[in-house]
């Protein structure tokens, strides 16, 4: 059954009466010329109508709490409920961002502790929690690279190197920072092409943005060599921490030679993705970038916690959000980190890697082609359907859509761009073996279906609230807001 738009449940004069102030509008203080003439076209519904509508809509979503969600690069692991409950304690929710320090010691203590934990986990000298997602963490990181070169009077550096497998945010960030993004190719084994890298570096190189393990699902084995090449050219190394889950407690970006890193706390530290956000993209830096960190940061004087701002870090790249980023997300990450503890960190990487390698082994045994068959999977790996596409016209999209009917969210498809018809599969450590086995069964079954009747598979999904949607029409006949029929 379809669910009408909330606007279609609206009737003039209807309201959720308990929810609005009892007093009627009294707007005489506003000059007539500034007052709104007609009320905005918002829905007018009762409390039950709103509750029922949004509860029903929620049922039209897949999510971790309801489905296996092996979306590569996204680390869709279990989001412990306690993280939510504790971050939403009334006192935390009510704390105004500009509340005096005397009313903030509890919150600040959490932030300080989290900074310390993240420093240890990444092997960096300093951490700032303020970036609001991975991409803003990248922005902060590249801004620090820029600030560093500028502080040294080095203004010739105009390029940021980015492997061709990189996530789109990497080159986009370079551009936002006024850099040209230059692509470095990947070799047949999934590593950075060292010769190409050597050829690309130079005095114009501000730095390189790397993910390790990369978005190809493999660990860049020559990372030390790469670090050497870039550092020798005067460039800095940026670590895109989206894949930190793979190496937590095993190997640290700081030890690999990175100068700056962002973490996706909404991946590795299991804060919820919320259907698109919010995230938190804390950044860590090596000693030499410490002065440039984005503010605010939490400092500690004796037993007292306080904000560090421009006065403390005059060379800071500045402020990336009105207040201090996604504080509530950071609280969730903190609770999660404390529940994992020292050993739990390490085990995250171990079991995430175990699950990925197990799935990889099982799929290979079932005849699926791996993008990098010679490699260990990290916490994720890539299946390519190039052969299925050629033989059966079975595409990654087809498999993705049909998987929904089997009760599984699809893996990431068509990313990274360099592998044709790819499925980037990341099971995460919180899934059990039986679930992985059922997922293998589903993929095998779909392949068999495609051999029997490819049209049927191309018609999938069949059990969702809608069948396959027309994306082309969505873009061509743009309908992006409700307009009541006139």
């Amino acid at each position, binding site marked *: 059954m379809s669910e009408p738009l909330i606007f279609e449940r609206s009737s003039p004069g209807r309201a959720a009466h308990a929810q609005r102030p009892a007093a009627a509008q009294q707007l005489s203080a506003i000059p007539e010329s500034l007052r709104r003439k007609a009320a905005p076209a918002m829905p007018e519904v009762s409390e039950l109508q709103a509750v029922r509508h949004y509860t029903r809509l929620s049922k*039209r979503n897949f999510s971790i709490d309801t489905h296996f969600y092996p979306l590569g690069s996204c680390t869709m692991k279990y989001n412990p409920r306690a993280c939510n409950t504790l971050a939403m304690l009334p006192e935390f929710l009510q704390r105004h961002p500009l509340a005096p320090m005397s009313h903030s010691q509890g919150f600040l203590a959490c932030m300080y502790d989290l900074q310390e934990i993240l420093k240890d986990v990444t092997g960096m000298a300093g951490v700032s929690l303020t970036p609001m997602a991975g991409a803003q963490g990248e922005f902060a990181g590249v801004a620090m690279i820029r600030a560093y070169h500028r502080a040294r009077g080095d203004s010739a550096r105009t390029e940021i190197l980015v492997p061709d497998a990189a996530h789109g945010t990497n080159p986009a960030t370079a551009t936002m920072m006024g850099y040209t993004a230059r692509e470095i190719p990947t070799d047949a084994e999934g590593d950075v092409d060292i010769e190409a890298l050597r050829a690309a570096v130079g005095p114009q190189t501000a730095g390189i943005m790397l993910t390790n393990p990369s978005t190809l699902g493999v660990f860049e084995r020559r990372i030390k060599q790469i670090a050497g090449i870039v550092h020798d050219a005067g460039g800095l190394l940026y670590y895109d921490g989206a894949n930190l889950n793979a190496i937590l407690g095993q190997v640290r970006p700081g030890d690999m030679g990175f100068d700056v890193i962002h973490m996706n706390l909404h991946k590795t530290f299991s804060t919820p993705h919320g259907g698109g956000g919010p995230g938190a993209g804390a950044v860590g830096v090596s000693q030499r970038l410490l002065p440039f960190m984005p503010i605010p940061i939490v400092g500690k004087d004796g037993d007292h916690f306080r904000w560090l701002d421009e006065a403390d870090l005059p060379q800071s790249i500045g402020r990336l959000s009105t207040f201090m980023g*996604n504080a509530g997300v950071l609280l969730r990450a903190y609770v999660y980190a404390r529940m994992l503890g020292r050993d739990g960190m390490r085990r995250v990487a171990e079991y995430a890697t175990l699950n990925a390698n197990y799935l990889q082994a099982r799929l290979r045994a079932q005849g699926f082609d791996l993008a990098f068959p010679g490699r260990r999977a990290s916490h994720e790996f890539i299946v390519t359907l190039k052969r299925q596409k050629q033989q059966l016209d079975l595409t990654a999209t087809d498999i993705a859509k049909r998987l929904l009917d089997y009760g599984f969210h699809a893996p990431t498809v068509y990313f990274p761009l360099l592998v044709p018809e790819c499925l980037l599969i990341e099971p995460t450590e919180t899934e059990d073996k039986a679930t992985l086995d059922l997922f293998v069964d589903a993929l095998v079954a779909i392949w068999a279906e495609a051999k029997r009747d490819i049209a049927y598979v191309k018609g999938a999904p069949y059990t969702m609230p809608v069948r396959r949607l027309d994306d082309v029409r969505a873009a061509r006949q743009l309908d992006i807001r409700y307009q009541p029929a006139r």
Partner: protein
Amino acid sequence: MPFIPHTETDVAQMLSTIGASSFDALFDEIPPELRCGELKHVPPRLTEMEVARLMHGRAHQDRHGLSFIGAGAYEHHIPAAVWEITTRGEYYSAYTPYQAEASQGTLQLLYEYQSMMTALTGMDVSNASMYDGASALAEAVLMAERAHADGKRRVVVPRTLHPLYRKVLFALIDAQNIEIVELPADADGRTDIAALSALDAGSFTCLVIPQPNFFGVFEDVDTLTDLARSKGAMVIAVVNPVSLAVLRPPGEWGSGTSGGGIGVDIVCGDGQPLGAPLSSGGPYFGFLTARQAFVRQMPGRIVGRTVDLDGKPGFTLTLQAREQHIRRSKATSNICTNQGLLVTAATIHMSLLGAEGLARVASASLNGTAELTAMLCEIPGVERVFASPGFHEAVIRLPQPVAPVLAALASAHGVLGGFDLSADYPELGHALLICVTETKTPADLRHYRDALATVLAAAA
């Protein structure tokens, strides 16, 4: 092993399927010298019970007083239903709706959100959120620069804009060679029209207009809009969404006589007042709406309605060619993860309040602030700084430096008295920005007045 479901048997079977002898073997591609040892600064794990106790204790340390701080983050009543529904696993633990068919809930909700935001702001198109108000402003400026072909890469920003927004704007656009010109405020706390008039036509790309401005004062938005347009600049409005239930929306600003039609080009602001708890500053969300003409310059996700194979309506992410995952270095922004869950809350919040509810909230805040201002100004030496009415904020001047007064109010009376303006606006003297929303009762206002009178008298 918190959150790990594997039994020992599972592990043994799985390793054997993989053909690995141990966990360590799974990491054998990592150069051994890079492997780290124990994480010494990460404390040993706590159980949920233990961490709950820790967090309850920390929360308790932060018990807030009666707060009259606004300055960009507002204490409003949030219906209980909002977060009870928003934290349902299906919203809370879903990813960005890449697989549209399995994400119709989130997608339809976002479409409804876009519809509500365009209605509130009077614009044609809305994206599905930015990080927060300040970063949304920066994206709006970048968007204007892209849209304004013959731009001078110069943006005019009034001093009446939130000082933290100005800082964030600077940090986020600095690398793109965009000059920021600041317009002073006049004696009424409004943007100085004369200073804007003095700028040459064609000398700047866009003008930013905050309404109400940081002081809670209403700007003369029509004149500002007309002036900017007459000089060939685009106009970006920074607004409080709750205020739009009662104020003329940016889509109707200006007379339209200077060409380009009525209304501004881009509207942005912080969505916090629409259902996001104060929560130490985040997560909130930035909203961004614009005229139809600029839709391809929009950063962020946009949801469109389309049909499925059977012709049935459905929702999907659209115009993705603007975004980093397709366009990469040429994308409209690097934003990927946004503030979806807060938009979920905001959409439910707006549905529950409706236009009338938001208008009542705005009205109660407006009148409460006026009342408090009047009450505090009864205290000898306390005066109002600007004559004009304030929205839910107002500026008063104290007869003494602000910081110690605020400290005394907090410690002795449990009153968080407002935001000290003296660092950001030294020209205003001992100025304090106070805020009242619908959450405050007449008794609360009296309590503040009495506390302030006591504190000032003690110090005098």
